[in-house]
């Protein structure tokens, strides 16, 4: 098992190398010139040229990549062109927010998606089934920022149930331990913070998770239908087990295996896909930060963020695979 994990981590290297090359090349064929970004609008051509020399921007691309890689191996991804702060620090300070949001979204999506899927499958071809599936289809057809704004208007502005935006009520930020507000507030026993953080995360998580909810619901439904037809479900019934146990224990447990794959993939894309949600809800995460960086051509930040997101993505996949082994005893990694 440990060996398997190490092996998977070794496989991370070519992926990260690939990702870094790709992002590096793409960012460098970008038209904006970092030197002129640094120098701002009053700069002269000579100043720009001087800075280009200093920054090594006139070197061949592979030399620049090599320099970048050397830095990266030492944990130095350079500094933001805009704020001058080290990229690693900037990104790490925003990472917990993104991860917290993505996790919340995937949890909500899983809860709703799996419930809808299971109910639809159990009541196949009934009105409940159709409603569930139309609901799921709506989830994939609504643009996130649209949905986000609607949610804000309904739940925050009209009903005053939940806050509009942000991560927590100003002033209630918990002490920094992990960077995850929900966890930190629990660790410090700060219930007011916890409540505030929880109420802030609901709307963005629902908006972000809507697409995943739909995908998970459809996946769950089809998997459940298949599994309900399996022989071992009949066996469970033949034992006299009540239907609830049959469905929730015997069937769902098996269905979870393919569902987990989907959830894993979705979580991966949520991490990078939170861009619009983060923007709408002013969520201080990496996604919107990175897009801003792209728009401002701040590419040390873009490179760093993409690489970090890739690492997390691969780690999430690894976690999913390990979860498989837990859920499906037939799978053993050695």
């Amino acid at each position, binding site marked *: 098992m440990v060996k398997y994990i190490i092996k998977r981590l070794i496989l991370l290297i070519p992926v990260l190398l690939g990702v870094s090359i790709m992002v590096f090349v793409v960012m460098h064929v970008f038209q904006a010139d970092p030197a002129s970004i640094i120098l701002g609008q009053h700069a002269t051509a000579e100043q720009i040229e001087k800075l280009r020399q200093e920054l090594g921007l006139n070197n061949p691309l592979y030399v620049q990549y090599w320099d970048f890689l050397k830095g990266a191996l030492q944990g130095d991804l350079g500094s933001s062109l805009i704020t001058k702060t080290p990229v690693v620090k900037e990104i790490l300070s925003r990472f917990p927010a993104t991860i917290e949001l993505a996790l919340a979204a995937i949890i909500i999506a899983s809860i709703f998606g799996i419930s809808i899927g299971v109910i639809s499958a159990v009541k196949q071809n009934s009105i409940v089934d159709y409603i569930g599936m139309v609901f799921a289809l709506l989830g994939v057809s609504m643009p996130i920022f649209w949905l986000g704004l609607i949610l804000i208007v309904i739940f925050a502005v009209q009903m005053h149930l939940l806050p509009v935006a942000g991560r927590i009520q100003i002033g209630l930020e918990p002490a920094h331990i992990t960077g995850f507000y929900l966890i930190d507030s629990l660790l410090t026993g700060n219930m007011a913070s916890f409540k505030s953080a929880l109420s802030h995360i609901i709307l963005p998580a629902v908006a972000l998770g809507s697409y995943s909810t739909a995908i998970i619901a459809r996946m769950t439904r089809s998997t459940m239908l298949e599994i309900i037809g399996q*022989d*071992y479900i009949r*066996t*469970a*019934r*033949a034992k*006299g087990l009540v*239907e609830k146990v049959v469905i929730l224990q015997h069937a769902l447990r098996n269905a979870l295996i393919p569902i987990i794959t989907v959830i894993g993939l979705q979580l991966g894309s949520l991490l990078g896909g939170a861009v619009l949600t983060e923007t709408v809800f002013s969520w201080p995460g990496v996604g919107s930060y990175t897009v801003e960086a792209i728009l401002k051509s701040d590419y040390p930040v873009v490179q760093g963020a993409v690489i970090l997101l890739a690492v997390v993505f691969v780690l999430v996949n690894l976690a999913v695979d390990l979860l498989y082994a837990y859920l499906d*005893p037939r799978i053993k990694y050695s």
Partner: protein
Amino acid sequence: MLLQVKNLKTQFKVKGGVVNAVDGVDFEIDRGEVVSIVGESGSGKSVTSLSIMGLIPNPPGKVIDGEILFKGEDLLKKTKKELQNIRGNEISMIFQEPMTSLNPVFTIGKQISEALIKHKNMSREEALKKSIEMLELVGIPSPEKRVKDYPHQLSGGMRQRVMIAMALACGPELLIADEPTTALDVTIQAQILDLMLKLKDKLGTSILLITHDLGVVAEVSDRVVVMYCGKVVEKGTVMEIFERPLHPYTEGLLLSIPRVDEKHDKLFMIPGVVPNPLNMPKGCAFADRCHRCEEICKKEVPPLVEYEGRQVRCFRYLNHKEGKV
């Protein structure tokens, strides 16, 4: 009588119509008896057994008529809850596919225990202990270790033995075995059949054995029910059926088995195939394939008639009884 099935009718609604999978089946099982149901694939054997268990998937299936008297009480009139209390407790069932009938994600210990916890109010530990005993009973070596295994860690024969252990855990009065050995190798099949018979003697359980392997039937059963297209075509003791089959279908079935101890060039063959269940012929379902087919067979469904103390569904014996032959 432990179980009496009377005029059982089970239907399936499928695309394009209604399949009468079981169409008026009668038979009975006494305590301690082994009754076999034989018949071609699709003749309604499994549906019969699932009807008894109350496990017909609904929709699309439904028991539309008949009675299933278990110890004198009609199972069809029981509530869901009462049925759940009978299933796995007083009546249990083993399925054909040992590979797929066990839940792959639970240990076999848990799967055997489940029924015990539910029906016998045992605690987890007690149930596990009992499970180990059951595994021992069905001849699984070092059962204490094996309870923690998952189905995929066992061979097909062992899995089928686990199924038997599971079915017998609560000490049922009736065991329904739906093709328990079809998926297994001959040598393993021999082991399993041997085991079932031994356990029957030891625990006094009645067995309803479903198969289309006449060899198996001949070796283990006391009485035989032959089905064709959802109907019982012949019933009798195992000797009667094998020595002197009355129905042309039974006859054909027996003749088409290649035998090790005889050699002839060509096998006897029942020509044709089973009719489409959605498009049943008007008369006797076997008429088209029958070498003794008469005019009347194509027009009317023959009734189940008494003949020499046995029952058979064929006009020939109806006529005979009425003294016309």
